[in-house]
């Protein structure tokens, strides 16, 4: 058979073979059929020895041509089949992504503790140490060293749980002021806060016999009421939002002089007046003042040399404000439906 006829036959056969092939695996078989030991292409050059130099040249050229042609065609076919097969595989692996995930159930953090940590972070960033003090305190630390001697009327406002004549459940975290000043043997400057639980004989919608307070104390050589205001302005912005403003009103606490009541603009209405702020635009947030010289003195700090400020606020109130919790008792009821709501990261207030 003439070489040209053979090549022609190969082309015809290839056309037919290609039509029949459905998978990339069959392309391998096809390659054997054409390029194997007994393949059609291999056969073209099988009788080369018998040919003249001229013929050899011609046969070589033609068989190379057809070889390239067949290779290209089979390869293209293989490629497209492989792609098709991959797509089929991917399609077959398609899943219902809407089915439930295999995640761990997330627990929650109590709003009271969240507020504590926020307060801590803010003051730590301002150089304050967070200290812990006992809840079971002495009358001395809770009252006497805070300039509230026995029989002082200020004790009435804080109905106290006594354990015995000497020990009590602290009615205020201010008790830690006395401890901190006394505990600082070197009498170096103090910057501390103490968040924690306090107890008073009182129970209704706005009072719980156990509640949280945070006390702050700064003692240094040049501390003023203006510094107190500057500090509390930043604190209020951090806790209640950037636009919060702070107002000072004179007040009275036995352990500070001068004493101030600190109001913040109502975060609900922005100061316009609403039921929450009783239409005043302001909400009472903290009690504060310059540390009373008697308190400094009892703590071993010479009031002629040192001044200081102290402040205290209710943590429950802060939590109630931030999360809009209407009743303090919800914080202590521990209803799972309440607790589970606090299961994510808090948004943060920027201070500008």
């Amino acid at each position, binding site marked *: 058979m003439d070489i040209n006829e053979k090549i022609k036959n190969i082309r015809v056969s290839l056309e037919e073979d290609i039509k029949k092939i459905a998978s990339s695996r069959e392309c391998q078989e096809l390659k054997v059929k054409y390029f194997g030991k007994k393949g059609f292409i291999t056969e073209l050059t099988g009788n080369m020895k018998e040919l003249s130099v001229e013929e050899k040249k011609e046969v070589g050229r033609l068989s190379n041509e057809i070889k390239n042609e067949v290779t290209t065609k089979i390869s293209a076919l293989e490629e497209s089949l492989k792609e098709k097969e991959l797509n089929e595989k991917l399609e077959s692996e398609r899943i219902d992504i809407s089915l439930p995930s295999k995640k761990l*159930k997330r627990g929650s953090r109590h709003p009271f503790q969240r507020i504590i940590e926020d307060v*801590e972070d803010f003051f730590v960033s301002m150089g304050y140490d967070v200290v*812990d003090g006992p809840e079971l305190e002495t009358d001395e630390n809770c009252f006497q060293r805070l300039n509230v001697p026995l029989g002082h009327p200020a004790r009435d406002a804080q109905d106290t749980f006594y354990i015995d004549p000497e020990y009590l459940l602290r009615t205020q975290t201010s008790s830690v002021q006395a401890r901190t000043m006394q505990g600082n043997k070197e009498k170096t400057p103090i910057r501390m806060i103490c968040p924690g639980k306090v107890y008073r004989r009182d129970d209704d919608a706005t009072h719980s016999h156990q509640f949280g307070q945070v006390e702050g104390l700064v003692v240094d050589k040049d501390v003023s009421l203006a510094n107190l205001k*500057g500090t509390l302005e930043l604190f209020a912005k951090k806790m209640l939002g950037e636009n919060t403003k702070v107002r000072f009103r*004179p007040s009275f606490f036995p352990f500070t002089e001068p004493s101030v009541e600190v109001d913040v603009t109502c975060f609900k209405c922005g100061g316009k007046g609403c039921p929450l702020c009783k239409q005043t635009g302001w909400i009472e947030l903290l009690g504060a003042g310059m540390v009373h010289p008697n308190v400094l003195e009892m703590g071993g700090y010479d009031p002629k040399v040192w001044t200081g400020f102290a402040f205290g606020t209710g943590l429950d109130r802060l939590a109630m404000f931030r999360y809009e919790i209407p009743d303090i008792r919800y914080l202590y009821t521990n209803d799972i439906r309440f607790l589970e709501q606090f299961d994510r990261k808090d948004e943060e207030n920027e201070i500008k």
Partner: protein
Amino acid sequence: MKLSRKFVSDYVSIDVDTKALADDMTSIGNEYDSCEKLIPTSKLIIGEVVECTDHPDSDHLHVCKVNIGTEILQIVCGAPNVRKGIKVIVAVDGTTLPGGIIKKGVIRGQESNGMLCAISELGLEHKFLTEKDINGIHELPMDAPIGEDAIAFMGLDDEVIDFELTSNRGDLLSILGMAYEIGALYGKEVSDIDLSFKEEKESIEGKFSLDIQTENCPLFLAKKVVGVTIKESPEFIKNRLIASGIRPINNVVDISNYVMLETGQPLHYYDADRLGDKLIVRMANDGEKLTTLDSQERVLSSSDIVIATEKEAVGLAGVMGGLTTEIEEDTKNIIIESAIFHPTCIRKTSKKVLRSEASNRFEKGLDPKRTYMAMMRSCHLLEKYADAKILSGTVEYKNMEIKEKVVSISLDKMNKVLGITLSKEEVLDILKRLQFETTVKGGDFTITVPTRRIDISIPEDIIEEVGRIYGIDKIEGKSLVLPTTPGTVNKTKRYIRNKLADLGLNETLSYALTPEEDGFQFTDAKGIEKVKVLDPMSEDRNTLRYSLIPSLVSIFKYNKARNYKDICIYEIGKSFYKKDEIYHEEERLAVLMTGIYQLGLKKEVVDFYVIKGILEELLESLGYKNRYSIVGTTDIHELHPGQSAKIIVNNTEIGVIGKVHPSIMKESVFVLELNLDLLFSFRVKKMQYKEISKYPSVLKDLAFVVKKNITAEEIHAVIKKAGGKLLKKIEVFDVYEGENVGSDEKSIAFSLTFEDPTRTLNDEEVMVIFNQIIEAVEKKLSAQVRDK
């Protein structure tokens, strides 16, 4: 303190409206609760009933024609006392009364264009109303001018600010004190109080004596007036008492209250003829009885001060007078008492007996100058309004020094504490407004504090005064300079809280005060005592908790009652106990788990191993890996004896873990508790890189069939010992009980990892160790290896 605007205006002029006054007072430290008109109505008009006929269709209504000056209105009125010719208070169409807005209408066919008012309809508190005020319309005097404002005519056109004063400002519990405060606020003068009166020739001296037997009464004045006429007080006195919240009784009693309101000094008037000629002030005897003005018999104790005759107690000093010597309709002669009693004593007694207007003032402390002033003011008013003749002389006991305090302070100190820059002139102006006598030398002020300001004694008090009158809110905030050392906070507890939340537990917050029964539950506490409060609010909250577990159990019960049965909760809180007479307080962590614990899609029913997993995850993540053990126990009565253990770290018990005993709770509830203070006392090693072996490790699995009572831990120990130092890791990966092993047996499968950091192990040497392990376990624990 209810402040009547009209009353205080006797002593200081006020140019602003009452709401502004209240707000301005707040800005200088005097908060108020309410600020209202005494009579909260719109304008009421004086009218005259010019015609009054019975309503044709009613047995009690009247149809009246009422002249209100501008017109004559027809008004239907049901009051029994309405009649032609009387002057009445008319609420015309559109008038606002506390009960609503008056509207024109037709009553049983008769047109009615308003209402004739009873006093009870004007919004006064019930205690101020007489029967007449409630049963009929008010009849104004005949000279009442028709068409004019009825409230103003009656003198009730007053406004009242109810202040909530701070406990140091006892001086503001008086009209005079308020006048000084308002004076300082607006820079106004305070007018003098009229203390004038005539004295009779007859003197009290020698005819009346005092015997003060207690040091709790440092000042006592007595004076006698005779020939008083008991009658109704003049309107202005009654109105001011009402505005101040005190019920008028008769002129004499009213004057004693009126003077107390003006001066802040409580007084007591005795019927002199019933009293006798001597007063004793002493501490009561324990169990002594006294019937007070309110007809109640009080049993007294030795901490109460009494005023007494030789025979009996006649008054509870500073709190309430006695019934036997009270002023009555027929009283003619009066002994006036103006005295000071020790604030703390009065506080104690009034807490026990009654908080009165008087006790409230005594408790805060009094200005002795006012004690004298109140006596004179009493005489002035009794002479003027009760026809009293005042005997000359005063019987006086004084055991105190009446001296003005002198305080010095520098301008520099003032500015430094406030953080502002006031000039000397500004400070002087403020001190002048406060009526504090001041001398200046260089930058130093020397201030003589008026005796009325008992709250002021040190330089800082002056700073506060200057600050508040200057306007404390005008001070601008300044940042503190940041210290060079950063602040510190304990992060470990936070880590634990977050870790447990990440593990799917909800953080709770419960009360530290619990019922006493909860006491030492879930612990095997020995040799310690509970901490109880002396004066609990209820038996449910009388003891400070030792374990936190009972609190979590209560939370479980609460939620279970609301159909929530899958509860995984934790709490960190203080634990309290007493040992060897010393109170202790420790931080504890408690966990409670029950129901389903969700791990991925797998809903794991909580069992011992789930909560043990939580414990181990926590301890290991805190760095206590290989340092803790969990040792079975039967010591905790509230826990299942076969499913409970003690948690040991460094040979110290730091907590318990286990299933709540079925006799306590039928549900499968698991709890654990750790003493965190104790745990943290064991310091963990620094987290540090260890060289990773370059050579591959060899893994081998094997399983033993053992008797059920053999624990995994026991097998683990034998394997470890037999395995030597090439055995790096031993892990349980399967436990089997069932058909393929005997009914008293179980199979436990271990995965063992062998490794040498210096070379590659060959199979033969591993097999030698492996066989040693099998031999050891089989021999020591009567075990049998399963699939080698």
